[in-house]
């Protein structure tokens, strides 16, 4: 008799711990049938690299949280306060999937705000589509976030394809480069950038003479830099995350590859410029959000939020924390528009009412029921004494 009881207890515990099995809910009453929403709170999840090779992006979570704290301190949204649960995935897609499953099935978040990385997002799209959980700001410029249409994804970041076009145009038309080289991460992120530059180079009448891939685990990039130098490039376009981008730029200057360097916004990190010293002067970056030190009211507000609700070490002013606050602004506006009776479908429909929305620090954002493409343009900026200076106007390349 005792053994049967024990067996029954073990089986019940086992069943309850399996994801997906309904459990008795907490003491708080729910206002809607969707998880993560109570009468006073909305639970939001995020999976970001807080450690490892892409750990620099971890500050995005801190920035999003700072904005949520600001909103909560000013009455919340429709009477509810926001709580952000950030889990570290170390830029490893398998950990991202574990985190997202945990957030959705065990922690019962209402929606997701920011999952970073191209491969990382690809790993979780099937799951969140099946679970019908909206994700605002899949933090990657991969075009795959919007094409083919993903009903549960709301990307904001400009795509690598658009960045590739903008950077190639700038190299060809402003810098008068005839021989373009590409240095890229050997995965979908870098691959998309390379494809865009290859196609645009033809259109602009310039030649892509060499492209050099790298792996995230590479410690030495001198072979790639030497081959690009040997190919006599007059501009190199870079699709790399900050650490390898920094190593490549420093190596290029050391070995005498002095052609102009143009990089995707993903490497636009002030700490990178500091580490490079003089070698980091005059490097071009594409960008789609205003400069973090801009005098625009929306950006000044972002700096205030960080000052009041963040700390200089965990949320330094810069493009990454700016992206976080901007994404959180978009998220909160969607929640606001969805109204007091908050459901996941309602949230999605609310986001799809955005038409040239400029309430966040981002450029105008439009989401429709059939197109969730994020910002589709960019401008070029240049590093100067450790900060960035805009050198070309914002454009929407064809």
């Amino acid at each position, binding site marked *: 008799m005792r053994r049967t009881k024990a067996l029954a207890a073990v089986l019940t515990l086992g069943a309850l711990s399996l994801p997906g099995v309904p459990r008795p809910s907490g003491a708080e009453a729910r206002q809607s049938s969707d998880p993560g929403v109570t009468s006073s709170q909305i639970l939001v999840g995020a999976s970001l690299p807080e450690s490892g090779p892409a*750990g620099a992006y971890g500050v995005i979570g801190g920035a999003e949280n700072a904005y949520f704290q600001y909103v909560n301190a000013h009455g919340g949204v429709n009477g509810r306060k926001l709580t952000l649960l950030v889990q570290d995935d170390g830029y490893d897609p398998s950990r991202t999937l574990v985190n997202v499953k945990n957030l959705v099935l065990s922690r019962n978040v209402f929606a997701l705000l920011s999952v970073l990385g191209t491969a990382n997002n690809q790993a979780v799209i099937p799951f969140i589509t099946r679970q019908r959980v909206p994700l605002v700001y899949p933090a990657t410029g991969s075009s795959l976030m919007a094409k083919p249409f993903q009903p549960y994804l709301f990307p904001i970041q400009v795509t690598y394809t658009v960045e590739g076009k903008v950077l190639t145009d700038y190299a060809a038309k402003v810098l008068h480069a005839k021989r373009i080289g590409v240095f890229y991460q*050997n995965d979908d992120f870098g691959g998309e950038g390379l494809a865009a530059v290859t196609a645009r180079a033809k259109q602009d009448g310039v030649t892509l003479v060499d492209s050099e891939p790298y792996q995230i685990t590479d410690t030495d990039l*001198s072979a790639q830099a*030497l081959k690009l130098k040997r190919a006599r490039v007059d501009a190199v376009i870079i699709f790399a995350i*900050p*650490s390898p981008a*920094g190593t490549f730029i420093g190596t290029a200057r*050391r070995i005498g590859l002095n052609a102009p360097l143009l990089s995707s916004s993903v490497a636009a990190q002030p700490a990178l410029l500091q580490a490079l010293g003089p070698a980091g002067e005059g490097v071009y970056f594409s960008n789609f959000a205003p400069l973090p030190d801009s005098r625009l009211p929306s950006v000044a507000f972002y700096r205030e939020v960080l000052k009041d609700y963040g700390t200089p070490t965990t949320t*330094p002013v810069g493009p*990454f924390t700016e992206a976080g606050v901007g994404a959180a602004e978009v998220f909160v506006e969607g929640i606001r528009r969805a109204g007091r009776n908050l459901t996941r479908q309602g949230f999605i429909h609310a986001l799809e009412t955005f038409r040239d929305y400029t309430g966040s620090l981002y450029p105008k954002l439009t989401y429709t029921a059939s197109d969730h493409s994020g910002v589709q343009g960019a401008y070029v900026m240049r590093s100067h004494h450790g900060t960035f200076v805009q050198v070309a106007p914002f454009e929407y390349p064809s």
Partner: protein
Amino acid sequence: MNDLVQVVLSGLVTGGIYALLAAGLTLIFQVSGVVNFAQGALAAVGAYTCWSLENQHGVALAPALAVTAAGLFLLGCLLQAVILRRLGGDLASSVIVTLGLLIVLEGGIGIVFGYSPPTTPLSLPLPDGQFNLGDWSLSLQELVLAALPIILLGALFLGLRYTRVGTAVRAVSQSARGARLVGIPVDRVRLAAWGVGAILAGAAGILIPSASTAPISPGMVEPYLLSAFTGAVLGGLDSLPGAAAGGWGLGILQNLVSYYTPTQVTSWGVGKDAVIFALLLAVLMARPTGIFGTAVQRRV
């Protein structure tokens, strides 16, 4: 020709860091029987300590380096005295424990300093400019970065060869029992080995930001450590000069393979890592104890 010289020089710089890490790993392994997976984390602790002293406490470089070295020595001794010694030389436990240490140390750095790179770099006063010899034009920074590990490890080997402590270390690494029998305080030698091993790791950690011109971060040593392990195994884990040579050799080899592999092949994913691990397999099949290691004889 200049390209080849450049490839080798850059390989020497990276290889020097591998050699420092490999030497520390091997020293600790030989003397205490522990494979220290936390070697990279110790390197990061060294880098952050030096950075913090210079940038947060306004200490000049030379005293900062001295304090960092002393601190690392103490940390290494502490780890051996408090944690590793109790494992009694069991290899499996030491693997798990040092992996745990890796997580704790890196996490600790993250908690104290944040995972985002600090905006001020850890920079060494390296000379700018080029060294020109005929057709060759080489960066002075790289030449200095290549030379520093040679000097440090040269000092280490001289110390091991010509000092009493060094001789004691060599004795313990040959046979702990035999050393004890001739009156060598084995426990104290182990402490010293861990202390010196930690200093070697710290040296690697301080050189990495200058070599890679990238900001410091808690996990910045990990890619180097992987190759350092490979180099140490290739060279032979029971030969300290062999492990160091393996580190340097691997640094140069990686660059040569990377430079001569056609880009098309690399973009398929068959990069230098594939070549090097294939090489490792081949070497270990032919000589399981590494190129410079002594063959192990078993008495049946």
